[in-house]
């Protein structure tokens, strides 16, 4: 994934948690490490769809645990769109 998109993604994550985007690491887990609950995680998924103009598979999206997994899934989706 290009750096610009990755930066945009981490910026989005940062709006939902207490950490600045530079401190968000790939191995961090949304719930345990970044404090997401089900409501804001679902709102976050909606923001991903709007920001990157992609269509998430809801069943798959709710199983994403870490930042790395989410980035990988987003890369997969943006490639499909291209």
């Amino acid at each position: 994934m290009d750096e610009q998109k990755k930066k945009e993604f981490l910026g989005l994550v940062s709006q939902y948690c207490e950490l600045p985007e530079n401190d968000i690491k790939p191995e961090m887990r949304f719930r345990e490490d970044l404090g997401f609950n089900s409501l804001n995680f679902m709102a976050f998924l909606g923001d991903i769809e709007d920001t990157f103009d992609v269509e998430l598979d809801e069943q798959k999206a709710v199983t994403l645990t870490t930042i790395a997994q989410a980035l990988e899934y987003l890369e997969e989706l943006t490639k499909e769109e291209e």
Partner: protein
Amino acid sequence: MEKELYPLNVGQMLQYLPIKETGTQRCCNISVFCGLQSPIDFGLLKHAVQDEFERADCLRLRFTAPDENGDVMQYVVDHDDRDVPFLDLSGMTMPEADAYLQSKTYEEFNAPDIPMAEFTMVKMPEGYNGLYIHIDHRLTDSTALIVTVNDIMEIYCHYRFGSEYPAPLASFIEVLKKDLEKANNPKRQSKDEKFWRDMLTENGEPIYSDIQGPGVLRASRKAHGDRTLCAADVEKKDRSVGIADFHLEPEATQNMMDFCMNHNISMTNLILLAMRTYLSKQNGGQQDIMLRNFVSRRSTREEWTCGGSRTLSYPCRTIITPDTEFLDAAYKVQDVQNRVYLHSNYDPMKVKAMMKELYPTPDDTEYISMSLTYQPMPVRMKNEHLKGINVRSVWYPNGAATKKIYLTVTHSANDGGMIFDFHYQKASLTYHDMELLYYYMMKIIYKGMAEPDMTIGEIITNI
């Protein structure tokens, strides 16, 4: 300079709708006392409240006069330099003082272009000192009000003890602009619309359920001369409200929190499961149950501190067969709620209109008898200078129950327990009905937590 006008966001519209329908602003009032059992320097508290009016633009919102359709616009004034009055109720008993503040709750903000929030410093009986806040619901919801109270106390601690001044709050207007942009995103709108249409059609018409049993729906069927009617009449004439509060002990609360944590279930969904299981029990094992869940849409850091009303409510419909194990049933509720959350940008009034279009029931009938708000954030003084001091927070009802049963679950500020606060329509329900409802909800939860593989049917039979 000309003031900049903005429309209401969806959450504010939901609060405004009853004003439009009833012509009285009272049904949109929130009133709360929050205080500490400790001496307070009221001069500094006043200073802190005045700072808060500068920091939080939502407190400076005004509304225009209604237009020809009854709609209003909002704007923010630059400053609000009003005094913060002081009230000494310490000579009264606590019930007398509460009754006095309760009576102030009915005062209306009934004119355009006026301040919609009043803060009063109060000296209460039993050594409690604090603030009585009387405010229009469009300026705040319960989460935002807790943020406001906590922020004022942080500012107070800065002036009183020299602790750090709190970080700035987000601007309500800036967040509102983003909300309006999202609401006007056509792609998002069509996705959300499709979701709700599918959700409302995939299992056909919902059916009403009531803690008073199937007789309620039967009575509506008889009144409308329609034996297939699935919705029941709502109470329109007598909306006087009864209140029943029950305190769940800290240990029992902790058990529930541990269960939620260990099984990755949210507290909201566990409580929704208990509510729907009791409705199922009372309605001959009915499997198709619809509740209403209120959600405060505060996900990003800005949304947490911008104030305003962001509380939306959506139907939560689940069809659970009696052979479903308790844990699986909880996951079923959670799955529905997760999907609802993903589409909770959508205007709940449009969901209501869609339901009416799909299932044209008579006016003033409903599928839902019970609503839930779970409020995970307690009024808690996190500043170390205030730790260990008893906190008293009292929410005074505005006197109008627009829902048959509205349960608000909060965490106690003092002991780590939970408070189950039932507001019910006295026209058809009694305090004893709420006692039974609470008793069975707890039995369902405790049976299910002890034996998560027990089926819903077995739990209903066993409790």
